[in-house]
């Protein structure tokens, strides 16, 4: 027990990582930008719908507060922030001070992942809870069901709250592998938006692979796909939940392995 005073405890690591994150100006910019985009998009999407009388059952009201591209943008924001939280430390050199202070790298990464996931979950929850009534007001008189007490809405809010931590942890692994801030941000965009889009567009005939991408999994769980004659194929809900848990865990493991094996 004599060493316990010298050794940083996990609570100390959490405090250190929280200071690092909150001292970034972009952290607050991210909150403000994300909330603005989420609310503005919910309003915009809701205002531009004309539902013919009696046709309301053909519409999925969830696609207005939970527009897939808006939430892709929020996910990419979170992933970019996660990527920069790792890559930025390498480019500033802070990572050497961090690992000198705490040689146990996996504890540092675990603490950062925890802080990042928690703050992104709050971020996602605020965005989701703000989007639902916004779209509800914009759609008033046309579509109903956008109430936070509705079980379907609650499931969508839960899935959307989890989307940002999942994306942030995927982003952390990208930052650990790529380490160059600009390349990491571009890779985050490619991994979450452009690559699944290319796969699903018929190129390479790998649409099945695109179904497992984080945003497709979110669409499957939150049921945020427009009702149509030819909906994009989605995973069944249980499989989607498994993948939704597997993405952050697998990428966190990858981050720990990569950071542990490479020179800082």
């Amino acid at each position, binding site marked *: 027990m004599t060493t316990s005073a010298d050794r940083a405890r996990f609570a100390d690591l959490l405090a250190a990582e929280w200071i690092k994150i909150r001292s970034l100006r*972009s952290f607050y910019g991210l909150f403000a930008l994300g909330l603005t985009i989420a609310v503005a998009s919910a309003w915009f999407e809701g205002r*531009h719908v004309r539902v013919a009388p009696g046709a309301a059952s053909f519409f999925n009201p969830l696609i207005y507060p939970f527009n897939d*591209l*808006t939430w*892709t*943008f929020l996910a*990419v924001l979170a992933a*970019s922030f996660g990527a*920069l939280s790792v*890559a*930025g430390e390498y480019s500033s050199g802070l990572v050497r001070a961090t690992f000198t202070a705490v040689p146990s790298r996996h504890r540092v990464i675990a603490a950062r992942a925890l802080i990042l996931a928690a703050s992104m979950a709050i971020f996602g929850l605020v965005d989701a809870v703000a989007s639902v009534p916004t779209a509800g007001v914009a759609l008033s008189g046309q579509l109903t069901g956008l109430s936070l007490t509705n079980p379907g809405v609650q499931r969508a809010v839960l899935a959307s709250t989890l989307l940002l931590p999942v994306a942030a942890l995927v982003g952390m692994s990208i930052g650990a592998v790529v380490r160059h*801030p*600009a*390349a*990491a*941000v*571009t890779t985050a*965009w490619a991994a979450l*938006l*452009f690559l699944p*889009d*290319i796969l699903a*567009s*018929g*190129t*390479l*005939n790998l649409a099945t692979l695109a179904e497992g991408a984080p945003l497709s999994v979110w669409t499957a769980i939150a049921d945020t796909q427009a009702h149509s004659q030819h909906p994009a194929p989605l995973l069944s809900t249980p499989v989607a939940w498994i993948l939704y848990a597997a993405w952050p865990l697998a990428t966190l493991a990858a981050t720990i392995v990569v950071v542990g094996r490479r020179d800082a």
Partner: protein
Amino acid sequence: MTADPVARRDTDAAGEGPALSRAPSTATAPIQRQVFTRGRARFGDLLPAEWIKLWSLRSTAPALIGVVALSLYLAHADPVRATFDGTVWLLPMLGAGALGAQSIVGEHASGLIRTTLVAVPDRGRVVLAKAAVVAAVAAVFGLVIACGDLAVVSSRATGFAAVPSLAASAVLTLACALVGLALGTLIRNLAATSFGICVVLGFLPLFLKPDQNRWATDVANALPYYAWGRLTGAGHASATTTASVAWGTLAAWMAASIVLTLTTLNRRDV
């Protein structure tokens, strides 16, 4: 290509010998004027300077070649495509944007921009030289991918109006490089600039499509991606405008980017 331009200029007016070594001994007006011309970089000197800066980065050539290879592989692998594939063309667009951004943000990051502007205080000429080099490289980059696309497509489709498509593709990547240059000048941080490029060139066209409500359609029609789609007939990526408006849209993006770059760099401390 016949002689080194710097050496030729030294000897042109003075007859023989380098001008700088003669300056102290004869303080007459022609010599002074000549010393002045010798010291000032001409536009013909700025272009090679920017060319050297661009290609002395290790990552430039591999990145461009990588995007060309990936685009052509995707063009080849697509089983259903008839002409240019819009989604795949996001890759060269982002690549060209990154090329333009890197050319200015890299200078800000390393501090080279201060040396550049001390050597050439006329910032407008620096910007024009940089834009010219980046635009030329980006246009060739787009042209190569477009030619490769056509080579793949021509075996399946006939009667394809090739020249406007090739031209539009070259102009698209050119415009994207200038947009990257403008965003880079504005933001000056490479990670944030990359994010901005992905938003403006990649995310906006996927978010606002020209088949939605009036407002979204108008904005989508004004995006380079859909203007290019109108000119190439790319599937799912065509603006609902005439071809001349689409050309005008691409030209407007180029002009606005140049103006933004010029005014921003001129007004800011470096």
